[in-house]
């Protein structure tokens, strides 16, 4: 969506504003703090060249918490997600300012290797992207490059545990040597989740993990997110309001690079405080 259209929408929203509801894009409404913060983003700005993609976002993400990032296309939710494991590093024009702490450690500090960071912050992508290798090698790749297993038996165990946690073991245990790319879309996405878990991360980032999947596969992934939240902090970017409502504990609404509103999931869907949030969750901005 172009900027002009977005501004029109803002104006439209302003015209419709009810008394007591603000329409200004300013300070974030709601509680950006978490009781048990694990990932802390303070005043984060991201620029792609001249394009100011993320504007002064502050957000805390708790341990064992699922937080959903929602908002219209181009609102910066994916960009924010990719800041958390420094995937933006590979884009040459990208520039990040502000601080992001992972368990108290600055992830943009000079003496932190992005390789070490990504071992702690895993990521699942929009389109399932298994390596063109066997199912076993897909899962074993992360542990191998980080040297997590001392011998083959230990590696086998990691692969098995990861596939079990991703709910894929029973479907693939007899064909671990088959190509990962030969699985169905939903299975591929669970394979990608198993691959991420195998490295033993503390945070899992998911960038619209179900947008390429059918409803049944989506339901399985959502159940999986629920189970995984016992052990990991999970950040899910999603376009589906229902999905956000089903899987997340908290919801953050982004608009034009600004974090508009953050709140408990129940609260934000029943009682949005910002006009733009309301318009989005009721389907008036898409």
């Amino acid at each position, binding site marked *: 969506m172009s900027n002009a259209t977005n501004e029109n929408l803002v104006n439209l929203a302003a015209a419709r504003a009810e008394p007591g509801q603000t329409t200004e894009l300013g300070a974030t409404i709601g509680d950006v703090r978490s009781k048990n913060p694990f990932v802390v983003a303070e005043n984060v700005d991201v620029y792609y060249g001249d394009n100011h993609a993320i504007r002064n976002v502050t957000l805390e993400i708790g341990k064992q918490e699922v937080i959903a990032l929602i908002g219209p296309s181009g609102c910066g939710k994916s960009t924010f997600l990719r800041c958390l494991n420094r995937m933006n590093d590979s884009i040459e024009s990208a520039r990040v300012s502000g601080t992001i702490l992972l368990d108290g450690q600055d992830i943009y500090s000079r003496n932190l290797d992005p390789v*070490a960071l*990504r071992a702690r912050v*895993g990521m699942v992508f929009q389109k399932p992207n298994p*390596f063109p290798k066997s199912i076993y090698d897909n899962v074993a790749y992360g542990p191998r490059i*980080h040297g997590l297993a001392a011998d083959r038996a230990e590696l086998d165990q990691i692969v098995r545990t990861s596939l079990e946690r991703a709910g894929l073991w029973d479907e693939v245990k007899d064909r671990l040597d088959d190509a990962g*790319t030969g699985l169905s879309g939903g299975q591929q996405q669970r394979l990608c989740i198993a691959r*991420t878990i195998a490295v033993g991360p503390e945070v899992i980032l998911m960038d619209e993990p179900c947008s390429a999947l059918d409803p049944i596969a989506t339901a399985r992934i959502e159940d999986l997110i629920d189970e995984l939240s016992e052990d990991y902090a999970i950040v899910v970017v999603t376009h589906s309001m229902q999905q956000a409502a089903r899987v997340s504990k908290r919801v953050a609404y982004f608009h034009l690079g600004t974090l508009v509103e953050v709140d408990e999931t129940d609260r934000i869907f029943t009682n949005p405080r910002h006009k733009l949030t309301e318009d989005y969750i009721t389907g008036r901005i898409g």
Partner: protein
Amino acid sequence: MAMATSTTNRQKVEAGLSRRRRKELVFRYTGLLATTVGILFLGVFFVDLFGKGASAFRQTYISLDVELSEAVIAPGGEPDFAFADFDGLVRDALRKLFPEVTERSQRRELYRLLSVGAAYQVRDLVEQDPALLGTTQTLWVPASANVDMLIKRSEGEPVEDDSGQLSVAQVYWVGQLQQQELLKKGWNTALFTNGDSREPELAGIRGALMGSFYMLLVTVVIAFPTGVAAAVYLEEFAPRSRISDIIEVNINNLAAVPSIVFGLLGLAVFINWASLPRSAPLVGGLVLSLLTLPVIIIASRAAIKSVPPSIRDAASSLGASRMQVVFHHVMPLALPGMLTGTIIGMSRALGESAPLLMIGMVAFIVDVPAGLTDPATALPVQIYLWADSPERAFAERTSAAIIVLLGFLLLMNLAAVIIRKRMQRNW
């Protein structure tokens, strides 16, 4: 209103239909015509080439009862392979077939029916099996090129000379030999086992083939790793800047530089400055690797670019370092493309002759090269040399050498296609 509009619209569409169909037909037949013309030219080329060259794979042999006389071959008890008169033995054997020829000048004419290779054949026979010394052996020895051409021209018919290369007496003798069934046409082994020669019936492409082989060896050893490494660096590690843009443009320019310029460069740098030997496959290979390097770099970069970014994202999100992403994921997926590019570059190098002229590989070299620094020619240069020779027998050998060269090119391109088909992965 709406009805009226739709009717006129339909009429307009129908009015234009036949014009559209006609245009499509014209276009289709133009394409068909172009393809036919192309295939026709290719057909004429191949028919001509094989028509001229196929006969070079056969050679005429004369049957002689050669007496391997001890007195001639081993005058001092031990066989003397360097100086014994093997020529005399062969001539004696031929003379026995025509006892009526006594005059010296006539005898000399008679001897010219034989190739000088006949004596070498007898020598090699004795050298391999000294026990034959003192016996009389029936041997098929090569006839001279003029007799060979005469026999090939007059398939099965009583011989009749029209080239003016043979005297009336010689033609008569050949006819006699043919009647007594002492002439036969057999597989021309000399073409594949010998180096170059002034005598067409002894000239072979072995030397040129080995020269080409050594050159390609040097080229692949140098150009493949260098080209791939350059492509990986430029695609994966080099920062995008003005300098990298300039490098990119210049690699593309390099691919378009005429090959003779690379030959001059090789002459100046490798021979004049680095004092490497002239006419050596080593220098040829170095020059050809400069020539193929841009081709390999461009093909490899395209192959790397075609690896989907999702694979890179997946690997780096798991914590793979940049090098691990490249070597574990990008390279295996890009390898088929890189190999295809390399083979196509190699087949271009195999067919290249212009740069080799500049570094002295266009010489009359009889010995088959045994190493990288031995003087050598290459297949295309050999073709050029033979095409320049006045003897008619060299004309058919030129075509034969072209057939062999085309055969190798075809094999290499086939290998490229097979590699691409076999190793291609879907994701």
